[in-house]
């Protein structure tokens, strides 16, 4: 199956994506991650207002095959969570980069974006996996 790695997004080695939006980012898991997890049944979302550091576990994704954490791609404050996922966690499987977004984080240190991976770099990560 062809794994989608859209241009214009940034990635982490833990298979999260981040999209720059105003003062912050939207974050979710990549197509590769959702295809590895397969049917997602449940997601535990963080609280709005929670302060997080880059690399902190901010959500738990329960899938049939396994359970995994979502790590904050950047440091900052959780300003939005995708409530729709509580009823329809399968959106992450169907549309990981758009309606399947998980959190929005207001960045405290925009320089951290430099530490994230470009699409071509992320492609190398999944080829090694």
């Amino acid at each position, binding site marked *: 199956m062809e794994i989608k790695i859209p241009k214009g997004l940034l990635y982490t080695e833990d298979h999260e994506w981040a999209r720059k939006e105003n003062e912050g980012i939207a974050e979710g898991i990549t197509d590769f991650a959702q295809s590895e997890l397969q*049917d997602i*049944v449940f997601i535990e979302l963080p609280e709005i207002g929670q302060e997080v550091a880059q690399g902190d576990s901010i959500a738990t994704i329960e899938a049939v095959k396994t359970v995994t954490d979502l790590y904050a791609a950047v440091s900052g404050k959780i300003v939005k969570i995708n409530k729709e996922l509580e009823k329809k966690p399968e959106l992450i499987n169907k549309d990981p980069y758009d309606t399947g977004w998980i959190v929005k984080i207001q960045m405290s240190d925009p320089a951290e974006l430099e530490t994230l991976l470009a699409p071509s770099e992320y492609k190398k990560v999944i080829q090694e996996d």
Partner: protein
Amino acid sequence: MKERKTSLYKKHLELNASMVNFAGYRMPMQYSSIFNETKAVRNSAGLFDTSHMGEIEVTGNDATEFINRLVTFDISKLKDFQAKYTVMLNEKGGIIDDLLVYNLGRKYLVVVNASNQEKDFNWISEHKKGNVEVQNVGEKYFQIAVQGPLSEEIIKGAVKDDLSELEFYHAKEEKIEGEEILLSRTGYTGEDGFEIYGKSTEAEKIWDRVIKEGKEYNLSPCGLGARDLLRLEMGYCLYGNDITAETTPLEANLSWVVSLGKENFIGKDILLRQKKEGIKRKLVGILVPGKRIPRHGYKILVEGKEAGTITSGTYSPNIESSIAMGYINKPYDKEGTKVQIEIRNMVTEGEITGTPFWKQGTIKKKSSDRKRSN
């Protein structure tokens, strides 16, 4: 060890399956979605490649006696072309493997788990006694399963024969596309269904024919993900998870596959002693309302104290709840007992329940042979 491929490997790639390593084989985990595939089997039919399973043939004048010493069920009771699910034990009464034994008249076919095929073959060969020949024929045969309420319609079209008289846990010789196959009314899903054994070289041809016959019945190819979910909805054991060399069939709620009245078999003395003294723990079904999944190795608590361990768990979209199996200390094995499961540092409530979890399976109609005796 080099990863093995089944003779249907190309078919899985053509169908865009996501492939994983399982028991040394490159196998399809899913084609579309585990949940959709599970639903197809419950509502219409699903097609599985189970060629990774091992097959061992036993022939010779003393074959019946020989196998009877190795497995717990009295296979001398099997009529020609009848099959039985049973287990093979070590001297300590622990389960070496769970398997199917077919009496095919002049020979026995023993179908074993993929991960155990070398171990089983070696064990059986080492215990050879009398006039018997044991052959590992796993590579020679493919195996596919068609499971679901509409599977009879599909297979009927492929073999061009009436199958209404073929009873559950019975087999017959048939032909598909002119090729000889062994057609068995068995499965691992709780639905009516068939397992087909044939020569590996003909696997693709037969797979294609079954797919073609299944078109109008909504036959869906299914991967290992659906297979695991379906068996768990039925409370069927998975070797390595729910049963191991450290568990006995009495503990595993498998006394219905044990003939303690049989003259002798390896492990019998241990089972007799265990029966007399009483088992200390038992494999049970646990219903865990909600979507948090109890997984292999998680602790089971009763009133805050550790009382057992989860061996398998999943979320069932058909039951709309998380379900699990696990060993729990007596006397907490009684149905209705409230338990708590530690799921990632959070205590989740559950209840001991009878299996199957899924009670509407079409297997029921024809299952007189497999009814649990306990």
